[in-house]
Structure formats: structure tokens, C-alpha cells
């Protein structure tokens, strides 16, 4: 499969990611097998694959929450496993469940990063937080606690919290998981709009085929911890590879022995 360049002008701050021969073992289980791919500065790159295929583990290596068993991950020229990298490159991670700080209000969740890194006085921080909230249409939620928010709102607050960091690299872990189709479309639109506005590098991990194929500049398909294909969305739409085609358009075969067994169990 081939690759295509991003249509959006690349920001000077945007950074690329290089994953080289990444292998990860948890005890005797190998989760990632010799994974290699490259994310170019300023593009939206989607890692698509079924649940349990190792997508989130790749993201955790990029943000430095996991260290490789072998191979390496580089952000720009820097080693992702080195904690110093996070001080040199602004990267933001939107967790699947939001990972909002439950003891802080929505406003304080967003203000934590600029306050802790002393990025201006309280008035400046307020402007920054309110701007991020307004981009995601969350202007009136600042005083609310995370426990009072719906799943979709939590996702949007998590994205707003990432935006306050003014990241060079924005990582999304299953941004549309557990959301209804309308909210999924909204989140998809937000990811696209953010890239249009700030031209940052975005890496999206998802099992949502429509999200990956509608938004990405390039897509990687991962299955059982191995990269099966990398290419532009059109390559995937017109694929002749039966495994990829089956992932994109799964056919439910009721004559499958697994279904027969389920039927027997039910009886």
C-alpha cells in the first residue's frame, strides 16, 4: 500500500513519531511483535484493529508509560522512554475513559497543567481554559464535577484538557468507544477540526473503521500485535486482502460452528 501526504499545512511545532521493531512482552505473553511504522509531522495517523490487538500498548510506549522489551520509539529525535522527552515535547494523551481528575471540577482539570507548569498568571490561565472549553462547546460546564458528566461530555472535557496543553502531538485512545453514532460523529468532526486549526500531529487508536477511514491521512491495521498493512484510506476501501476485507466488512455466518455451539449451550 502507498502513502499520501497531508493536505493541511504542517505546523513548525508538529513532530513525527518513528516506531522501530517494537516488541513488548508481559511475562510469557508477547503483545507486540516487531511493530514498525512512521507518523509524519502534521498528519492524522490512525491505528485500527480489533480489541486486544495491542493498539493501546503502542500508545503507552509513545507517551512513555511502558518501556519496550526490544525496539524503540522516537518522538522527533528523542527517545520516548526517556522521561526528559515529555519536558521537551508537548504531548497530550486523551485516554479512552477520559481519566479526568474526579476530585477536581472541569475547570480545575483543565487549569492543572498550566498552573503546575506556571504558564502565566491566573487571568491568562482562565483565558486559556475558557478558550479550550469554548472550542468543544463546554462553556457552561466549568463548575461541574466529572461525576456529573455524561460519557460524551467526559470525552470532550478530556480533549479540552489536552488542548490546554497546546500539544505538538495529540494521541487519542479509542475516542469514539462507548458513544452513540451522533456523539461519535461529533468527536470525529472535532478531531478533524483541531487538526485543521492547529496542524498538530494526531495519532488515533481505534477499532471504529468508519472513524479511521473518514479522518485519517494514513491508516495502519494491527492484528494480533502485528502490523498487517499501512496505507491511505482508499487503499483499505479497495483492498483485495481477505483478512483486511473481513475486518472492514465482517460477515456474520450463522452456520459457523461457534454459533452452533452457542445454540447448543442455550438449549
Amino acid at each position, binding site marked *: 500500500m502507498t502513502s499520501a501526504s497531508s493536505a493541511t499545512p504542517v505546523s513548525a511545532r508538529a513532530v513525527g513519531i518513528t516506531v522501530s521493531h517494537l516488541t513488548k512482552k508481559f511475562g510469557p505473553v508477547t503483545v507486540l511483535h516487531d511493530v514498525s511504522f512512521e507518523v509524519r509531522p502534521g498528519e492524522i495517523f490512525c491505528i485500527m484493529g480489533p480489541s486486544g490487538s495491542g493498539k493501546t500498548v503502542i500508545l503507552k510506549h509513545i507517551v512513555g*508509560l511502558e518501556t519496550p522489551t526490544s525496539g524503540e520509539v522516537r518522538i522527533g529525535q528523542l527517545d520516548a522512554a526517556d522521561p526528559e522527552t*515529555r*519536558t521537551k515535547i508537548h504531548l497530550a*494523551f486523551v485516554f479512552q475513559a477520559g*481519566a479526568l*481528575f*474526579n476530585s477536581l471540577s472541569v475547570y480545575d482539570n483543565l487549569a492543572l497543567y498550566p498552573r503546575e507548569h506556571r504558564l502565566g498568571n491566573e487571568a491568562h490561565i482562565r483565558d486559556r481554559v475558557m478558550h479550550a472549553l469554548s472550542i468543544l462547546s463546554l462553556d457552561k460546564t466549568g463548575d461541574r464535577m466529572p461525576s456529573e458528566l455524561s460519557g460524551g461530555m467526559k470525552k470532550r472535557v478530556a480533549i479540552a484538557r489536552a488542548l490546554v496543553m497546546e500539544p505538538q502531538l495529540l494521541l487519542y485512545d479509542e475516542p469514539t468507544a462507548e458513544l452513540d453514532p451522533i456523539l461519535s460523529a461529533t468527536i470525529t468532526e472535532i478531531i478533524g477540526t483541531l487538526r485543521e486549526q492547529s496542524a498538530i500531529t494526531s495519532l488515533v487508536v481505534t477499532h471504529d473503521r468508519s472513524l479511521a477511514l473518514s479522518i485519517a491521512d494514513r491508516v495502519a491495521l494491527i492484528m494480533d500485535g502485528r502490523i498487517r498493512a499501512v496505507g491511505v484510506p482508499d487503499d483499505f476501501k479497495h483492498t483485495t486482502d481477505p483478512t483486511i476485507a473481513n475486518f472492514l466488512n465482517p460477515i456474520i455466518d450463522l452456520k459457523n460452528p461457534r454459533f452452533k455451539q452457542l445454540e447448543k449451550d442455550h438449549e
Partner: protein
Amino acid sequence: MKQILGIIEGIGETVLLVARSARYANTLPRQFPRFIEQCYQIGYKTMPIVTILCFFIGSALAQQSGYSLEDFGGKQFIGALVGLSMARELGPVMVAILVAGRVGSAITAELASMKVYQEIDALVTMDIPPERILVLPRLAAILVMMPVLTMIANLCGWFGGALVCQYTASISVSSQSYFSVLERFMHMKDIVDSLIKAEVFGIVVITICCHIGLNTRGGPREIGASLTKAIVTSLIFILVLDFFINDILI
């Protein structure tokens, strides 16, 4: 052998946690609100239970020693016995146990749930070290509050003993006589030793609870397991350290 190595590894990691937190000591002035919040949680909210418990420990100690010393004609020394027992042993140990049960458990539960629900991971990705904003303010607060709580515990124990001596017919030692003996046999070193023990216990309890909370893995069920582990480990360390600190201080 594996278990012993695990214990040694745990002790090493706990010491490293204190060292990593101490590296951010210069950020304490701008973390003043967090420090005050922790002083409130550790000190103010623990005070009532410390007061009640130590008052009755002092009372019970006076009752028992009154009953035992009567045979030897040594009732007049009850003040010294209660005073020294509370200051040198029961005050700091009881406060440490109460802090482990009330504050330590809350800390472990909070940090473990933050870990399980990825809030700690979020902090790390935001380049905000958890040691700086979660551990350091608690360590600073325990350093300030442990001596205060221990002195309150000692005073409550002494007054509890005095009341029992005054108003129990079988003992009937006046408060004046009780406190004059207590004063005669107590030295400044006893109070200083009491506070040193309290400080060591406080730091150990908070560090163990923070360490176990921050290293929780798995789901909500592991939060409960971490809580039990933190309390049991803290209690073991309080009592084992008590023996060794006594050995050094006496």
C-alpha cells in the same frame, strides 16, 4: 526467598519514593493550599479520635497500675508510670496506629483509585510528577502534625490518669500529688524521644500507604487489596520499628 526479596525490594522502592518526593521540596511554598488541606485531613480530623482514645488509655493505665501497685505500697508513683508510659511508648505508638487506620487507609484508597482509573497515568503524561503533588504535601503535613497529635495524646493520657486517681476510691491519689510525681520523674529527653518516634512512625506510615496506593494494578477489587496491604504493612512496621528505635534511644 522470593518473599524476602520482595520485602527488601518494597523497602527500597519506599525509600526511593521519599527521596524522589524530597527532590521537589522547593515547590512546597507554591503548594501551600495542598499542604494546609493535608494538615486539616491528617491533623484536625484525627484529633478527636486521638483525644478520646488516649484519654481512656491513660485512665485504664492508672486503674491497672493503681490495682497492681497497691500491694507494694507504690500508689504514689502512678503519675510517673502513666506519664512515662504515655510519653515514651503509648502516645507515639497509638497516634501512629490511629494515623495508619484513619489517614493511611484514606490515602491508599485515594491513590489506588487514581491509579486504577488512570489519573496517575494522566499526570505522568502531563509531565506532572505524582510525587510532587500527591506525596510531598502529605509528607510535609505529617512532619508538622505528628508532634502536635503526639503531644495531645500524651496530655490526654496524663489527664485521664489523673482523673481516675483522683476519683477512684480504691486509688485516691490527688491530682496534685499525681502531677508532682509525674513532673519529678519525667525529663525533657522523654518528650523529645516521644516526638522523634512519632516523626519516624508518621513518615513510615505515609510513605508505605502512598507507595502501595501508587503501585496498585488491576481493577476496583485491587483497591481493597491495596488498602488491607497498606494497613497491615504499616502496623507491622510501627511495632517492629518501635523496638529498634527504643533500642537506639534508651
